[in-house]
Each structure stands twice: as C-alpha cells, then as structure tokens.
C-alpha cells in the first residue's frame, strides 16, 4: 500500500522543479491533569525518501530529516472550544529549534460527521534569536465509515486542510496542505491513522515547492 502511494507520489513529482517526499511518523499521547487541563506530548520524526532542488537532479535515497518533541497544555473553554499553549523542541541537521505555541480549537459533532477548526500561532527560536513567526489555520472533517459514531474496532476517514503563513526576517511564505487519512479506532483511547500530507508553498516564486509525506500517527489517551 505504502509503495503504491509512493509510486503515485513519485510519478507526480517527476515534473516538479522542487519537491520533497518521504514519511512522517508521530506518537501522540494525551492525559488529564487535574479536572480541567489536558497534557499532550507528541513525538514526531520525518524521513526523506526522494527530493529535488531547483536545477538539480532528483535524489532518491533515505535521509533522516528531523525529530520534534512537542509538549502542550490545553483546557476546555466550553464543551466545543479548547485553548492551549506549549513548547516544541526540534533537532534538525545538528541544530536545535525552540518553538512557543498558542492554539485554539473548535470541534463540533454533527449527525454524520465532526468538523474541527484549529487556529495556531507559533514563534520559532534558534541560538541566534527569533527565526520565524507562523500563523496556521486548519479545518478538519472526520466521518465514521460504519454508522454514525466512531466506536472501537471501526474505521473512519479524516481530511484536514491546512493554511500556513510564515514570516521570517523580512521574508514571507504561504503554504497550503491537504491531509487525507484513514483511521482505525483500536480501543476508545487508541487510534491509528495512515494518510498522505500534500503541501505546496513558495507560491510567489516561479516554480512552486511541493511536499508529499506518507503519514502514520498513533493517538493514545489516558
């Protein structure tokens, strides 16, 4: 299955001027802190399997790109709304990046599906100071594939649409992503998602940059 997806992705990227393709894996663990707080830890790593830079030949070899560790504390403002903040540390090419995160979520369950909105702002720092500032809006739709509710041992479909603005030392960029995924609820507190993350950015330049990631996520709640 993964090979088939990659074959399609690589075929699509053959004509691109700039692209990166690979895999993203994450373990996402959540547990309650007291009555109203929730603590989220996320460990995510990304590997590049194929890439092409402008005016260069494509390279098809495995390269480890980065690892992120995110720690978020959230609280419910109301039954549908959540607010939170946290910290992420990233190790990439022997450099540490530190990110401060603020986020707001709205999740609503309708008769047949759920809709989630997320507005997130973050500031990234390196040892040399502020590296960039980003604002991200994500809308997600999730639908059970059997019945009206996602019960244990059932599959579901999820599609996220991501819009990301980045400002960095006088430069700005805009990125759009679409992330379809197939999920499986193993137990009420364990979900696994396999999907694709397709992104385009550098829209203002002559050739847009594209990213294709096969994503694997494991969500655990305690």
């Amino acid at each position: 299955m993964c090979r088939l997806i990659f074959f399609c992705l690589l075929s699509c990227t053959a004509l691109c001027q700039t692209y990166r393709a690979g895999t993203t894996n994450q373990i996402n663990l959540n547990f309650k802190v007291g009555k109203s707080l929730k603590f989220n830890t996320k460990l995510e790593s990304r590997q590049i399997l194929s890439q092409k830079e402008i005016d260069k030949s494509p390279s098809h070899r495995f390269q480890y790109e980065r690892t992120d560790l995110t720690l978020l504390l959230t609280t419910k403002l109301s039954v549908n709304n959540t607010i939170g903040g946290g910290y992420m540390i990233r190790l990439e090419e022997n450099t540490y990046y530190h990110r401060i995160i603020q986020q707001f979520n709205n999740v609503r369950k309708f008769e047949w599906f759920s809709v989630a909105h997320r507005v997130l702002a973050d500031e990234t720092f390196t040892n040399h100071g502020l590296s960039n500032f980003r604002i991200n809006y994500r809308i997600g739709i999730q639908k059970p594939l059997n019945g009206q509710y996602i019960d244990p041992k059932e599959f579901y479909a999820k599609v996220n649409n991501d819009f990301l603005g980045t400002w960095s030392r006088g430069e700005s960029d805009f990125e759009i992503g679409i992330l379809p995924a197939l999920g499986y609820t193993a137990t009420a507190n364990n979900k696994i998602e396999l999907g694709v993350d397709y992104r385009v950015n550098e829209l203002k330049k002559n050739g847009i940059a594209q990213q294709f990631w096969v994503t694997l996520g494991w969500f655990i709640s305690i």
Partner: protein
Amino acid sequence: MISLNLWIAKFKTVIANKHFLYPFFFLLVALHCTPCLGQKKYEREYTVKADSVPDSAALFVSRLFNNSKVHWYMEESDTTKSIEAKLKHSGKHYSIEFDESGQIQDIEILINIRDLEKNTRSKIKDNLNATFKRQKIIKTQLQWVGSENSLERAVLANMPLEGIIVKYEIVVRGQTENVEAYFEVLFDSTGRIESTMEIALANDDNLIY
C-alpha cells in the same frame, strides 16, 4: 542532510552534551510506556444490512415507508441490543427503534422546537432554564410510543392518535453547576422532565492535536 548512521552518531554526541534534555526524554519514555488503564463500558453502534434485521422490523418499515432509503443500525451495550431504522419520508426524518426480536419500541420524528404548541414549548423552556444555568437546544425529536398497530395508524395519519403516548426528546448544550456538556432530556406530553442524561462525547484528541 546527513545519512542515518552519521545522524545517529551525531545525535548521541549532541545528547551527551545537552543534559537539560534528559528530563524531556525521561518524561516522554515514561509516559509512552504507561499502560492504558481506563476501561470503559463497551457500547457500540454500527451499520447492518437490511437482510440481517428481523423480518417483522423490515416489514413494518417497508409497509409504511416503501419508497424511502433506509439506513439500519445495531446498537449494543453490555446488556441489551436494539435495532434502529433511519429514513427520510415526506420531508421528515424518522428514527424507528426495535428490540432485538424486531418488536417496535418507538418512533422519533425530527422537528423544530417552534413547531410545538406554544404552552408546551414555554413549559419545556421553563424547565430547561430551571435545570441548567445556560442552555441551547440543539435537536428536538417528537417521540411516539405505543403498540405496532397504533404507531402504524399514527404514521399514516401523520399525527398521534388514540393509544399513542407522546414525548419530546431534546438534546441541549447546557451548563450545570460544574460543567458544560451535551444532555439528552426527555419530556412528557405536558413538558415535564422525565429524565436527563449526559451524552458521553467521543475522544476527539486526534482532531485537536
């Protein structure tokens, strides 16, 4: 970019020099090794095919709603099983509930709260205001309970006839003393509350993070 082996070697070197990271990695490993302790009551709802529901249930639905597309669901809890048919007929959304043997339990029809008679509506709202600090009506269903014959006649007449007990099942987003949640509130025909049940929301962590 660097190769995997080189990256691992460099990672070890960097970690060795960055002692402040130890608590993070310890926390991460500890948390990710913690077993899942929460055991919830097993309840499940899933789609079933029309040919696997009891004949009596299938016949009742096909007799009254012959041109409608019917979605069948099985609902299981630790102790009971029930079958539900959901369909749209003459512009109305119906939910028809049967027990496991196909015996009809009730018929629910989706309505707007404004469709209720004024006195009943104001009594329902008064009772909701007395129960919750703040509340918003999300969904209103008319519930008819009665024998199979009575329910059949009521559906054909498009109104409750003799032998039908009318109730109102209302989903509200309400705030009690401690918490805001969704509740299913059942009212009798006069607008008096019969039962209030908090609706357990599904885990949506994968939509938030």
